[in-house]
């Protein structure tokens, strides 16, 4: 029974944590380049609706995923222009994109409410691996292809950020844009591209919800997941690999809040993921601020050549 509880909790944590992980990875890339993107929720919504409409109209999941990512990229480009070229307040721009994105997605999706998807993305058991005791039921049973894609993407983002020259440039742009500029990097272009990557990941996260996890379109389908992803980015300390256990932690508390409702006060379990985030943030602040834990030094600061940082 205890083992069943463990494996089921991990499996559900993975399923619920996938969109959080995808969006958090996108946020890690953008924030590592120094751009805060509060537009995640809006980008996820647009990805969700765009993916759903394309999947419903054409029946093609790959095309739907592509369009979902492009929808995220399109709005991210807006944020990117505002944040990196016009040097306006990133927080205001991101919030505006969330508010506008949610509204626009609901408007675009209006006529698709109540219409099921004929061919959604289906969960599957991974051959051979699903037969492994414990690990099989926990990670390789009834999961979606996008979940494994998200895990692979975490590795890819880590490799690019920490094991490649472009990644080094990106992180330098986020830490000290003036130094990166002096070293010959195009700060604005790097930041702009990082924001676009973030938008693509957010679009994919939204598509996971409307094409696989639900699968359905309904108003406010993300229901605040974009904001959780922002918290996750901090909980993961801006590290793509740490985002995986952080997403699992959020997912585990969420599923346990229902599984253990009979024995533990549900309010406590509903509260726990947020308590963990607050504790983590407190711990981070206590341990010496953003520099000590890996927050990019120039996070949220627009870069103008020649200005003192």
């Amino acid at each position, binding site marked *: 029974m205890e083992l*069943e*509880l463990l494996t*089921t909790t991990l499996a*559900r944590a993975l399923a*619920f944590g996938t969109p959080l992980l995808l969006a958090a990875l996108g946020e890690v890339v953008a924030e590592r380049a120094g751009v805060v993107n509060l537009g995640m*929720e*809006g980008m996820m919504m647009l990805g969700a609706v765009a993916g759903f409409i394309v999947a419903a109209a054409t029946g093609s999941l790959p095309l739907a995923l592509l369009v979902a990512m492009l929808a995220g990229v399109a709005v991210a480009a807006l944020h990117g222009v505002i944040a990196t070229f016009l040097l306006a307040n990133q927080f205001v721009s991101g*919030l505006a994109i*969330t*508010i*506008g994105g*949610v*509204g626009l997605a*609901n*408007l675009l*999706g*209006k006529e698709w*409410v*109540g*219409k*099921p998807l004929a061919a959604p993305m289906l*969960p599957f058991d991974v051959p051979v691996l699903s037969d492994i005791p414990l690990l099989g039921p926990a990670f390789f049973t009834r999961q979606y292809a996008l979940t494994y894609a998200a895990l692979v993407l975490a590795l890819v983002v880590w490799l690019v950020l920490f094991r490649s020259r472009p990644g080094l440039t990106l992180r330098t742009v986020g830490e000290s844009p003036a130094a990166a500029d002096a070293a010959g990097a195009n700060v604005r272009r790097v930041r702009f591209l990082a924001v676009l990557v973030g938008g693509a990941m957010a679009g994919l996260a939204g598509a996971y919800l409307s094409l696989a*996890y*639900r*699968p*359905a379109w*309904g*108003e*406010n*389908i993300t*229901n*605040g*997941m974009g*904001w*959780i992803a922002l918290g996750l980015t901090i909980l993961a300390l801006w590290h793509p690999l740490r985002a995986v256990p952080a997403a699992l932690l959020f997912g585990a508390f*969420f*599923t346990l809040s*229902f*599984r253990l*409702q*009979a024995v533990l*006060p*549900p*309010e406590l379990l*509903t509260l726990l993921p947020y308590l963990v985030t607050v504790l983590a943030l407190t711990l981070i602040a206590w341990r010496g601020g953003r520099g000590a834990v890996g927050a990019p030094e120039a996070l949220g600061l627009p870069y103008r050549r020649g200005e003192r940082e």
Partner: protein
Amino acid sequence: MNISYDRRRRVGGGRVGRGASDLAVMARRYRETRAPAGPTSEVFIMRFARQLAVLALITVFYGAAAQVSETDVKACWLYVGPVGDYGFSYAQDLGRKATAADLPGITTAYVEAVAEADVEATVDQLVADGCNVVLGTSFGFGDGLLAAAERYPDVIFGHATGVERAPNLLTYMADFYQVYYVNGLIAGGLSSSGIVGYIGAFPIPEVKRHIDAFAIGVKEANPDAKVVVRWLYNWFDPAGAKEATEALIADGADVFAFTEDTPTVAQTAAAHGYPSFSHYASMLPYAPDTIASGQLVNWGVLTTDILGKVIDGTYTSTNLQDVDYFWLLSQGAVEVGAEPGMVINPAYEEALKERTVELANGDRLSVYDLALLRIEQMSSDPVAFDPFTGPVYDRKGNLVYAAGVTPSVAELLGLQWAADNVEGPWEGEP
């Protein structure tokens, strides 16, 4: 009734951040079904038109004093959620459309995603736009509607799911408890594990009443089965509904009912091949093989009756103090069915015909026939059966309703006890 759990929470969602999406829906809140006439650029025409309008208003005003003609009624709805929620506000809007079709002379309009605090200001806007009947459709709108009814004594107000009335404010409700009881019979008849799952929104009397009626039905068809309840603490929480269903499946549940505004529970159960029920709207398209039956609402039946009586002069802005609708199966306000017309999904007909139940009078009936019998008994006027007729015991062993006693509407509206086959947290349990 616990105010903090009111229907206002049908939008947004408390579990995860909600502010931004609320702002977004607020931004496109006001919408009319009839587009206003475009403005003319000529100022003098405007002035002339305005004078004409004043004249027309005066004429209408005096005319209205004599009799409200059908074409004068402009009924305006206030929804708590977006009409695209495919749940409560969606059902309210279907009701508005049905009434507009039933009474072609009237004009209708609606405002969606109205926050509780904005009710009065929204009513101001609606009355300024010519609405003479205002229908608020959320429990939490009560205070705002009462204040507005006092400020606009000539306007007729209606409050769906409300409890407080005024001379120009009536209340109306389409309640599901009989429907949930029939769904419980079907759930009990279909459960092999003896564990029936119920995903509830908030532990408030309305939801508890429905769970109890459902559990009484389950017990009648399957005396050993229990109903395991998990709460979302939210009217809208698709991810929570999904994980709650998965958690119940892990704990052995094999039939599912719910109170949540999306088809997520039905979809999740279907992915495991387990039966479930439609809630509010038909969710059959989402799980065509596994929606066994469900709860369907026809708010339009109520609003057509209300507006019909406004048109024929039965209801005026002075005689609504005691007008309270608590409509059930017999009035056609609610319906048992996976979708309108499909009481029980043919896919489960055989299973339900195989399982038999012995009634109190010694007759043996299949669960299928029993469900149809109960629908027939509760659809007659006066009803020939009520699931809450005593003796009814709660799960603590207390006698709630003595033998032969049927609770009053007021008792049903304040119901707090848990049926003796219900398991799970139950806040406010007496």
